[in-house]
């Protein structure tokens, strides 16, 4: 029993990371039809920015963790907004080129991070509480999992509230459904594009800082490795569906942890198998409206 609890907690923590990446991917794709390969770089950049912040503040206090989260989110949002304004916007409605530009950006930025911070993993330390465990039903769950799950829930709640209660949220929800009709109501939908990129970038940057604590290190490859699973999550959840991304994040991560433990480390393969099954049974994903 305690093993199951531990696997669940770890899976939920990993699922939280997936969600922080996938939520932005899904929103951006849903509204703009852009598959953002550079999203992993927003995450990596956020992680490095957070690490640099915590390092300068002397490391392992709660205050520096909080600040590093804020800085990570801010830097991620800034990078995303710049990407949208400088690269994506020029290629309005040309989806293939937009994807290609983000591919180029992903390659270039990872190389740049290599040059700046080196290719080796840099180990990070958080508040002492992270090194302790909390016992739940006999399982000793590492404490950082709770932070991850908490932040992901806050982000989910925040985005849902933003979408539901603000004018921008209304425009985004309508735009996901029918972008050209939104412009035909006299609304400049491109401003919503920038907002969506900012939200996605902030979530990814936040995810970067949290990922560095979950894995215990930062490296230029951090974003890329999470990105692939975030892609799988968005396809399984249904492109453009935030709720779908949330559910799929948890399902994928928990399944991955379980398979890694019970089926001798086959987690990644089981996830791909799940993807294939979903595609065969329901090509539009769990919550996807359009195929």
């Amino acid at each position, binding site marked *: 029993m305690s093993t199951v609890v531990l696997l669940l907690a770890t899976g939920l923590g990993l699922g939280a990371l997936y969600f922080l990446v996938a939520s932005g991917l899904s929103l951006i794709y849903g509204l703009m039809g852009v*598959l953002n390969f550079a999203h992993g770089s927003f995450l990596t950049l956020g992680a490095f920015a957070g690490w640099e912040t915590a390092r300068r503040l002397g490391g392992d206090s709660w205050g520096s963790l909080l600040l590093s989260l804020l800085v990570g989110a801010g830097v991620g949002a800034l990078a995303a907004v710049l990407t949208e304004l400088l690269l994506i916007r020029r290629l309005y409605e040309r989806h293939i080129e937009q994807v290609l530009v983000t591919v180029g950006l992903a390659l270039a930025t990872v190389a740049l991070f*290599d040059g700046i911070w080196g290719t080796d993993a840099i180990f990070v330390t958080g508040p002492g509480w992270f090194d302790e465990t909390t016992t739940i039903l006999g399982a000793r769950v590492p404490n950082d999992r709770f932070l991850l799950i908490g932040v992901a829930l806050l982000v989910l709640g925040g985005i849902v509230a933003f979408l539901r209660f603000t004018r921008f949220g209304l425009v985004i929800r309508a735009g996901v459904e029918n972008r050209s009709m939104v412009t035909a109501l006299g609304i400049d939908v491109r401003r919503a594009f920038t907002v969506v990129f900012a939200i996605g970038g902030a979530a990814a940057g936040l995810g970067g800082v949290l990922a560095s604590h979950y894995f215990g290190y930062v490296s230029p490859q951090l974003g890329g490795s999470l990105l692939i699973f975030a892609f799988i999550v968005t396809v399984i959840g249904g492109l453009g569906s935030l709720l779908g991304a949330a559910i799929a994040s948890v399902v994928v991560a928990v399944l991955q942890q379980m398979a890694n433990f019970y089926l001798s480390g086959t987690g*990644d393969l089981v996830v791909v198998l799940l993807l294939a099954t979903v595609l065969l049974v329901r090509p539009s994903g769990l919550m996807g409206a359009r195929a």
Partner: protein
Amino acid sequence: MSTTTDTHPDTGTPQPAAPAGPTGGARRGAGLPLRLLAVLGLVVLLAVLPLINVSVPGVLPGATYTPGTLQLMALALVFASLALTYHVIFGVAGLLSFGHALYLAIGAYGLGIVLERTDLGLVPAMLLTLLGGAVVALVLGAVGLRVGGISFAMVTLAFAQAGSVLIRRNSDVTGGEEGLRLDTTNVPDAFVGVTDTRNLYWVALVLLVVVFALVTWFERSRAGHVAAATRENELRVRVLGLRPFAVKLLAFVTGSVLAVVVGMVYLLLQSGATPRVASADFTLTILVIVVLGGLGSRWGAVVGGIVYTLLDQRLTTLAASDAVESLPAVLSVPLGEPLFILGTLFILVVLFVPGGLVGLGARLAGARTRAGRPATPAAGEDGP
């Protein structure tokens, strides 16, 4: 039309030849033999390079007969072939696959493993690998093509990732992170060792010519035309009673199987394979090559593959050079990362040079031909 002063009705024909590029104007009258001759000449020139002493400073690291340079040129030819196989999938059929590296890896690792684990000779081992690759391409293609567009891209990415994971994890078979060494027991001596780089170079050249011919044949076949039509307008193809799925699958399997073949040559050339060839980054590299050269054009894929390989090598040399290291960090850090420069270059091409290198060349050539046009009609006049 208002032009009524035509004296020779047949003077109008040469016009489209110049801007139409490698695909369009090829079939016209005198264009075909000339073009074929030019291509043949190019192949012959490439074939004799290992036998003569040519140095191209700044482009090649040394004289063309040296093993190091031959190795690089052979690699460039292999990358050009690989880009052609991807061109079938993305350029012709319009399928954005992010998992093409998987098939190169199947070719390289598949052949390596078969040679190591069985007593089969090189040719039977290659056939076995080819068969395995075809089955994988057929199954994964059939599943992936249930979705279109961006979803297809992500699905192929996921499948390739699974392949990458399999290779890294099963280190007792694949060598894991260390990579797989080519077991040369059943490989003819002509293809082994540094001194025989020349032979491997010729193998790579034959590979490129064969792949180019096959891809051309596919593009001109009925299936190729339908695949291209599907890319433009799937609905219309469906209305015509054709099945887009079957044609897309055919294009996907064709491109993938050819990539398996390229992978086998890659294994011989590199005397082994590393997990990098199965990585997502490697697929992205192929994508970069195709777009850099000119999307939708066979020559674009070839040019892209060669330019990329040489550029990558030169940039790596540049990155390690003293000149770069002595620069201030703001410059030396980015210049020290070849992929940063290539990625940036790629972004600039996508933004500002839609036709890639080949498109740019055609545009420049077109501008020049137009400037010097008065001379041309007289030259190509008295044919029939």
